[in-house]
């Protein structure tokens, strides 16, 4: 690419985004809408991030439905399409279903990649490709990023670098074991005995892909398999699409899903020997395999950020973040895209956020753009004023159809404030944790939650004179939260905040 045509030459920018996957592109789109100058740099050569490579064998595990109860160009549609990036203007929208062949609600990797690239192209989102972030320095007024193209200076930096760097646990002998990312086409495993370390989605993706080829597949990890059918979480469980290898395990068809801690691994001339100890049942195992692969997950490429004081969790793989996705320990460093999962939220009833996927983090990026604009650059976005009698219908409509509240249950919430002069304002969609842990005027936040019986219900959090009261509204078999009972109950909840007789 000719140097003259490359955008964002090294220099000084208000914000620098590192990464050209869906997280970086989504944030760039919303920052531009708010008029915040920024540069986007990426070590890749094209947009798409992890979807340029993964998933290796399968379709995505997130749906994009074309035929839905709501119009394609409406806001509620985004709940039925977890993979398309968000746009404020209908002419900016690019729907992943437009790139799908209609044989599945789950796009293939290529379909997803094309959808992201089309979003970047239609919205003319510039990226300086082939520019790798190498090192980071912190100053009083911001940061300097050293890159392969030169130095970038900025007040705020957002790393949307994915959580896609191969990660392997400490097991003696694992250093020679190929990772999931190194797998070759499935047919190359014809007639082989394949041993997969791991029993989460990437392990099951391999098992599913190799099923027609391998003569034996063993998956092993210490913890029993947790399917989304069991824990109802789309985030921290094996999705039902991968149930077939597990059924094969249950029927004794040659696939095994074992609960075992791997003690050590030995490579020999013809393959591998795996020594393990059963966890659910205390058995000493020795396995022989032709192929051994570590489907043990991924980590965030943090380069030298730990040296700046960045704290991490989940075995040093994920940065610890505030509810607005800022490093909990290095102010001014933010994370976008998949790494926004570092702001864990409340995990109510064990249900984590969907920030690890496009479905969740696209909403995070819209909120982050506004947060950066307001916090660092003094952008004043007018709030919509509501009449008191609009509050209940507005909040219930959000619980019924806001994609933010459904994709990010108990994580994002629609907030309405009541000012001391009794004027009522829509404060927008905010992280629920931020609302609960911050002070402010009387207000009500509504979100959608899924309880430990699997029932989806709206939950209202009422802040009155600084104290928070949680009120869980009734559920509904058809998920209609707009009935008389809901109106009456929510009116009862918000009435004390509003002027007398205003409802």
């Amino acid at each position, binding site marked *: 690419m000719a140097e003259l045509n490359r955008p964002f030459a090294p220099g000084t920018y208000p914000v620098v985004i590192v990464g050209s996957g869906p997280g970086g592109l989504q944030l760039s789109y919303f920052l531009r809408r708010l008029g915040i100058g920024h540069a986007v740099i990426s070590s890749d050569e094209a947009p798409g991030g992890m979807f340029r490579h993964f998933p290796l064998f399968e379709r995505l595990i997130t749906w994009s439905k074309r035929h839905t109860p709501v119009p394609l160009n409406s806001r509620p549609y985004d709940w039925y399409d977890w993979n398309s990036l968000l746009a404020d203007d209908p002419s900016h929208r690019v729907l992943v279903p437009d790139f799908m062949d209609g044989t599945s609600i789950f796009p293939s990797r290529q379909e997803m990649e094309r959808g992201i690239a089309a979003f970047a192209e239609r919205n003319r989102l510039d990226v300086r490709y082939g520019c790798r972030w190498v090192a980071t320095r912190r100053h009083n007024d911001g940061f300097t990023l050293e890159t392969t193209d030169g130095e970038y200076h900025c007040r705020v930096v957002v790393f949307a670098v994915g959580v896609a760097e191969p990660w392997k646990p400490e097991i003696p002998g694992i250093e020679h074991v190929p990772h999931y990312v190194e797998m070759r086409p499935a047919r190359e495993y014809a007639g082989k005995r394949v041993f997969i370390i791991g029993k989460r989605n990437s392990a099951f993706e391999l098992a599913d892909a190799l099923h027609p080829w391998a003569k034996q597949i063993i998956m092993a990890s210490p*913890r029993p398999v947790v399917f989304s059918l069991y824990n109802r979480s789309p985030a921290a469980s094996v999705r039902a699409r991968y149930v077939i290898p597990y059924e094969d395990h249950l029927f004794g068809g040659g696939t095994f899903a074992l609960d075992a801690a791997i003690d050590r691994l030995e490579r020999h001339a013809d393959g591998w020997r795996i020594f393990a100890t059963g966890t659910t049942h205390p058995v000493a195992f020795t396995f022989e395999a032709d192929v051994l692969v570590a489907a043990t997950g991924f980590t965030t490429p943090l380069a030298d950020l730990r040296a700046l004081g960045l704290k991490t*969790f989940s075995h040093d793989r994920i940065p610890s973040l505030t509810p607005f996705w800022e490093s909990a320990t290095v102010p001014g460093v933010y994370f976008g895209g998949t790494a926004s999962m570092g702001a864990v939220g409340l995990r109510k009833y064990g249900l984590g956020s969907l920030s690890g996927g496009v479905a969740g983090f696209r909403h995070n990026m819209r909120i982050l753009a506004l947060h950066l604009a307001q916090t660092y650059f003094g952008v004043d976005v007018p709030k919509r004023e509501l009449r008191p009698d609009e509050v209940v219908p507005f909040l219930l409509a959000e619980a019924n159809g806001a994609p933010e509240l459904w994709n990010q249950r108990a994580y994002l919430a629609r907030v309405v404030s009541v000012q001391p002069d009794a004027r009522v304002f829509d404060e927008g969609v905010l992280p629920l944790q931020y609302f*609960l842990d911050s002070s402010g005027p009387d207000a009500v936040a509504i979100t959608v*939650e899924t*309880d430990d019986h699997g029932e989806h219900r709206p939950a209202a959090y009422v802040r009155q004179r600084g104290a*928070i009261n949680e009120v869980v509204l009734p559920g509904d078999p058809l998920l209609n939260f707009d009935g008389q009972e809901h109106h009456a109950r929510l009116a009862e909840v918000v009435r004390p905040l509003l002027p007398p007789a205003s409802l």
Partner: protein
Amino acid sequence: MIERSDIVDTLAGLALFADLTRPQLEAVAHTFEEEWFNEDQRILRQGLAGSAFYVILEGEVAVKIDGERRSTLGRGDFFGEVSVLLGGPPTADVVAARAVRCLVLSGPEVEGLLMTYPRVMFRMLQAQARRLQQANRWRS
């Protein structure tokens, strides 16, 4: 930086998990999530349903009821189990008194853990009995 093996070693040193074999500890380490909380961050919220069970690996937390500090918990201590076992919201806030690293198990998974590892249940019962004894002494 904490590796899974370090967590297994840490768990082995905690009274709650003292009776488990190494493979069982590995399974427990894979069952819990690890989280890190900065000083002053709220971990458990008084009155909010759907909370989880926490075991402190590093650091210290303050237990507060209606804003008043009632006790302090440190490495090896656990909290959140009462609301999970009784199915109600926590009756106290738990706030990081300094940076805290915890293992977290969602409420719905706690029963499974205790039924799978009865010795963990016994150790938890012992700890609860001690807390009750201490509370009774404090009252008398």
